[in-house]
């Protein structure tokens, strides 16, 4: 479990996060939603430890995050950022193997290579294994980065120890099919002892795959709770400043239709 309590992030004069509290548990896919500039990425970066917070505290499994070293953190949580540039010629497989860095002493062993292959299979990129990373399209790169993050915490999916996976807009460049397969995979991981925390823009994908949601606006958490309760028409209208309507598609799913 990871929980942030009343965290504050100030950059220069600007308060980017104000009194933000957030909790994500194993077994759940937590979604962070909100308009541009609401502080979603900042919250994600604070939670994964790459950004210093000015006030408040973050607890991982009950201990303060400051007590973890970078390499300890790297063994329990993986992060996929929005875009990763790589100007040198690495193959897709080599990029995914980089995800094994925290577990390696020097060079990858047999286990590392097996995990890299499985992670590539999981995101349906195994056929691209030997392609050079920079020759891929944006969406393909995103799927490789997903595999890399997955390879980093692979052991956690098979053990009792909890892991964390942070995803910053993981489906932004993906085609429809892979948006679903990727989030399906993220959901499956959350059921295997990984707390998945994802920033999403598509409310319908969030509604379909998310368990918990935090709706953010102007650096604050506007609404926290179960996704069905958070994504109510009135809250969407308040936060996104669009008119919203929930339409029941069948007994299981509903769609959110929005307009200005």
């Amino acid at each position, binding site marked *: 479990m990871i929980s942030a309590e009343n965290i504050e992030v100030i950059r220069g004069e600007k308060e980017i996060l104000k009194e933000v509290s957030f909790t994500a548990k194993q077994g759940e896919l937590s979604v962070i939603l909100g308009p541009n500039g609401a502080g979603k990425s900042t919250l994600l*970066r604070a939670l*994964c430890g*790459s950004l210093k917070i000015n006030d408040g505290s973050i607890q991982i499994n009950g201990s303060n995050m400051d007590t973890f070293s*970078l*390499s*300890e*953190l*790297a*063994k329990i*949580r*993986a*992060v996929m*950022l929005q875009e*990763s*540039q*790589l*100007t*040198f*010629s*690495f193959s897709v497989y*080599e*990029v995914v193997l*980089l*995800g094994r*860095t*925290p577990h*390696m002493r*020097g*060079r990858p062993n047999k286990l590392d290579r097996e995990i890299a292959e499985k992670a590539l299979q999981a995101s349906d990129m195994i056929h691209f294994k030997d392609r050079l990373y*920079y020759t891929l399209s944006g969406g393909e790169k995103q799927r490789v980065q997903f595999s890399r993050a997955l390879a*980093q915490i692979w052991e956690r999916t098979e053990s009792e120890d909890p892991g964390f996976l942070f995803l910053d807009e993981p489906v932004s460049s993906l085609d429809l099919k892979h948006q679903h397969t990727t989030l399906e995979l993220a959901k499956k991981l959350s059921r295997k002892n990984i707390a998945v925390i994802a920033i999403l823009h598509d409310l319908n994908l969030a509604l379909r795959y998310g368990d918990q949601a935090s709706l953010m606006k102007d650096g604050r958490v506007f609404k926290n709770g179960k996704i069905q309760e958070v994504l109510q028409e009135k809250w969407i209208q308040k936060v996104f400043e669009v008119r919203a309507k929930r339409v029941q598609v069948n007994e299981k799913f509903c769609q959110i239709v929005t307009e200005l």
Partner: protein
Amino acid sequence: MNRGIILLPLLGILLLFSILCGCSFGPMKISLASTIHSFLEPLEISYMDSLPTKIESMVIWDIRFPRVLLGVLVGSSLAVAGALMQGLFRNPLADPGIIGVTSGGAVGASIMIVLGSMIVGDEFVDTLGAFAIPLAAITGAFMVTLLIYRLSLIGEHVDIVSMLLIGIAINALAGALIGIIVFMATDEEVRTLTFWGLGSLARGDWHMLSCAAPFFVIPLLFVSIFSKSLNALLLGEEEAMHLGIEVSKLKKILILTTASLVGAAVSLTGSIGFIALVVPHIIRSIATSDHRLLLPAAGLLGASLLVLSDIVARTLVSPAELPIGILTALLGAPVFLSLLIRRKRQIFV
């Protein structure tokens, strides 16, 4: 990684061959067999034919071998420094000569030669002895690397255009500073200074080698520890941090290490350009960008390339000598251009 099993031994053989050629070619022709023999002599292994004469042995041991060894140290240091710097800047265009690190080293060394006793006092210079100039060069190289890194960083990313433009400015500034220093120097000091502009291995002798060796050998020995971190750093600084790398510590060590390698090289041989650019580029194109293989392979190839260039430099217009920098520039400038052209297509090898 399988390519490494073939590549490293091949490069090792190339280096051995270069060293032998470097000892055997020159104004006085010594056969390869005699050269090999003269190396085996101290080990008391001998085969009967082609014993080297006493003069041949002297030429090899006192003149040519130290010079070749200097080429090996400087060549491998420059190539490894280039690979490290390109990893740090996450860009294959980062060459210590082009971005001004070499000039920084040259300014440091020049200041020490001409103004050293004035600035830090005669006594201090005497205490440092032969270490004074390498240390000054390393300091200069270090300051420039730090400056460029700070200035070319825009947010998270190193801005390549800034990096190259800052390099132009620093090279110009260094040229001006060295000009002023030359103006203040005595005739003898001017002779010592002139050779920085050209670059040469001619000063290689045992005393100098033994003084400068630690500055090369120590960084070269422990540099491979960083291969894993350097690979992760290529993904980006934040990504590397998420993979458990202490990025700010790593960057400091990398800057210090490249400065030591480049500074030591400059203090002994002057500015020899493009080795740092070309050699890592060749290894990336024929084998891999993985630093675990790239760093040792670049070291071996850099050493061979400089020793071979030196052979050409001193035999082509013999008995005169071409400045070796001319040769490395002839080789390196086209590669630099081709990299710039590829940059348009966002494709780097």
